[in-house]
């Protein structure tokens, strides 16, 4: 009850960075490239990545290890060591440019306008300080308040994220908390200054499934309450399906497919996304269905493959005429559904997906007798197609942004 009031009292500093129109995306990443020069050469961790996230919306970034999802989001808070990292492009958080910003600007941004939840709360919390003290420190960094006041806010936040007996647990050390409680404490620490942008870097990976669900629910509740923009980094498509409004699929440091969650999960158009979906077990499905792994290993970021970086692992390379996949990097182009973009040379991805990929990966979605898709999926597909017809230039549930920028997540500009 008191936290929003306190946050209101400090809103003066936050108003500064806020965009003029509520409709403008809070986080804008444009042509972000992150490189790490090493003795062996330049590691191209992220290449030409663009996306936007609006307040109150959640963007899910999926990809395997080394796909650049964590690296790109750490760049949003300027967490890379400037001496060992080459950054280019633009990242604007509430209108403030992050790339090239001085330490003072970055400090006032970190934990205040934009906060981060890390993957493993046991290593991400300091082992020698009480949980409450660490939360209070975050509060005191950005507000001119007394220690007692900061402690009161810490207790408030712990209570809010569902820690029982917060006023006594506030003095506990991280090792005295369970895994789920630690992640709750981590979230409390991230939210204590009421940030407009929350970056959650695999927040549920280190937790068991029941706790995972609780944490995701908690994040969604808090998002509704505070209206923050959330970037959810994960390799778990289940998490994406549950919380994300939009999805950005990353591969080899690039965006390979992006768009509204429903469109991407129902009718993906990029073979890597197909592979991701095919390798997810379905607990309601038949138990004798084999999971189909993506063959091969993630691409080297030191010597990325020529052309499409997924081509060495792609089972559909031969469906593209000539050597196109091997020689030419596909552009991120408009897919069937508006706002849905993919980086792939395939001409008829929908057909391949529905006729070849889906029957193999999810046979229970295909009617055995007729060989047709099951009715539920038919309905979903029709819905997506309907939206395409109804709003040819507009994705569902959002107004068109300025400047004819028609897509919600807009990776890569010409």
């Amino acid at each position: 009850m008191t936290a929003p009031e306190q946050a209101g009292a400090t809103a003066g500093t936050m108003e500064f960075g806020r965009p003029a129109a509520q409709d403008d995306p809070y986080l804008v990443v444009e042509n972000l490239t992150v490189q790490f020069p090493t003795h062996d050469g330049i590691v191209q961790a992220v290449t030409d990545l663009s996306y936007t996230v609006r307040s109150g919306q959640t963007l899910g970034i999926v990809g395997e290890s080394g796909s650049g999802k964590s690296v790109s989001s750490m760049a949003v808070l300027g967490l890379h060591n400037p001496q060992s990292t080459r950054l280019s492009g633009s990242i604007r958080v509430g209108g403030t440019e992050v790339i090239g910003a001085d330490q003072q600007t970055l400090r006032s941004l970190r934990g205040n306008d934009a906060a981060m939840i890390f993957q493993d709360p046991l290593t991400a919390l300091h082992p020698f300080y009480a949980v409450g003290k660490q939360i209070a420190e975050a509060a005191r960094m950005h507000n001119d308040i007394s220690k007692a006041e900061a402690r009161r806010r810490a207790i408030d936040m712990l209570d809010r994220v569902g820690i029982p007996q917060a006023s006594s647990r506030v003095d506990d050390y991280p090792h005295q908390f369970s895994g789920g409680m630690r992640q709750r404490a981590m979230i409390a620490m991230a939210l204590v200054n009421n940030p407009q942008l929350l970056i959650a870097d695999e927040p549920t990976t280190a937790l068991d499934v029941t706790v995972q669900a609780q944490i995701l629910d908690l994040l969604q509740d808090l998002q509704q309450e505070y209206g923050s923009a959330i970037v959810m980094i994960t390799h778990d498509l289940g998490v994406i399906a549950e919380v994300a409004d939009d999805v950005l699929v990353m591969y080899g440091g690039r965006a390979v497919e992006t768009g509204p969650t429903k469109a991407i999960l129902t009718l993906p158009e990029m073979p890597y996304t197909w592979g991701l979906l095919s390798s997810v077990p379905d607990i309601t499905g038949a138990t004798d269905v084999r999971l189909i792994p993506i063959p091969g290993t993630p691409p080297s970021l030191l010597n990325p493959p020529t052309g499409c970086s997924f081509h060495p692992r792609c089972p559909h390379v031969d469906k593209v005429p000539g050597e196109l996949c091997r020689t030419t990097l596909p552009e991120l182009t408009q897919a069937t559904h508006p706002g849905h973009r993919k980086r792939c040379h395939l001409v008829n991805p929908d057909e391949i997906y529905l006729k070849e990929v889906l029957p193999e990966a999810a046979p229970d979605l295909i009617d055995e007798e007729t060989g047709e898709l099951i009715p539920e999926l038919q309905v979903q597909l029709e819905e997506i197609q309907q939206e395409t017809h109804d709003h040819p230039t507009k994705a569902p549930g959002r107004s068109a942004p300025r400047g004819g920028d028609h897509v919600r997540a807009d990776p890569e500009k010409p």
Partner: protein
Amino acid sequence: MLGYIVRRLMSAFLVVVLTSMFVFLLFFKGPSNPAEPLCNLNGKCTPEKLAILTEQLGYNDSVVHQYGIYVGGFFHDRTISFGPKYHCDAPCLGISFRTRNEVTSELVEKFPATLSIAVGGASIYLTLGVLLGTLAARRRGTLLDRSLVTFSVTVSAVPYYVIALMVWIYVSLQWKLIEDTSYHPITSDPLHWATGLALPWAVIGLTSSTAYARYSRGQMIETLGEDYVRTAVAKGVSERGVVIRHALRAAIVPIITIFGLDFAFLLTGTIFTEVIFQIDGVGKWAIQALRSPVDFPVVSATVLFGAVIIVLANLIVDLLYAVIDPRVRLA
């Protein structure tokens, strides 16, 4: 926590008892007759004279009986006779063969000098070492870092007594910057105390700080790469706050452990320092007792004293661990 302390105290006590037995056996039941050096002290040692001394000192009695008397001396006064009779107040560690003084009172007299050297030197090397190590870790890979590491390795490679001798020869004898190196009690003349010990402090502090700098640098590089340090940065903590409150706070724990044991080792006698700078401390006292004829009561006392200090230091470090690392509380 209390149970833990009691358990640790008991095991520490056991170690001290075992050490005292070992020391006693080593020096008084060794291959040579401990009465012999005493006999040699005053003129020619005849077999009759040796026999009388051996009998007087009780060396003909059983080991257990002798050890009982030796330990008894810790708790009540003893009378020791070799030639004349000497009274030895409790806690009695014997009478020095050479000076004919009580060993305990000599130890009490010598210890403040060693303690002063140890406290001053250790404060310098801990502060300087951690400071330089932290600086090098923050500027890892730069010229400053590399020259610090190179300098540190070079200094560590030169034997300590060479450095101490050079400093004494040049600073004290040649350039006469600080001529007087000696111990004066801090209670009587604090300024003289400090100037007299300045050179030993500087030498111990500078030479040992290099090892601490390397060690702190390694620890700091490790903790600066920890997830919780990244969390602190992501919270908006200033660089100084990140380095000191978050990284150094974690890095200091193993440093304190090593420091505790190093400091205890200094307390048992800074032999080279005391001998080179002519300071009457425990180290010089011990090394003099080893000169022929060997002053057995003094030697055994210094060894036992050293053992007690080391055992105590270990105990204190372990208890301190519980204070500085919340994870080992209630262990």
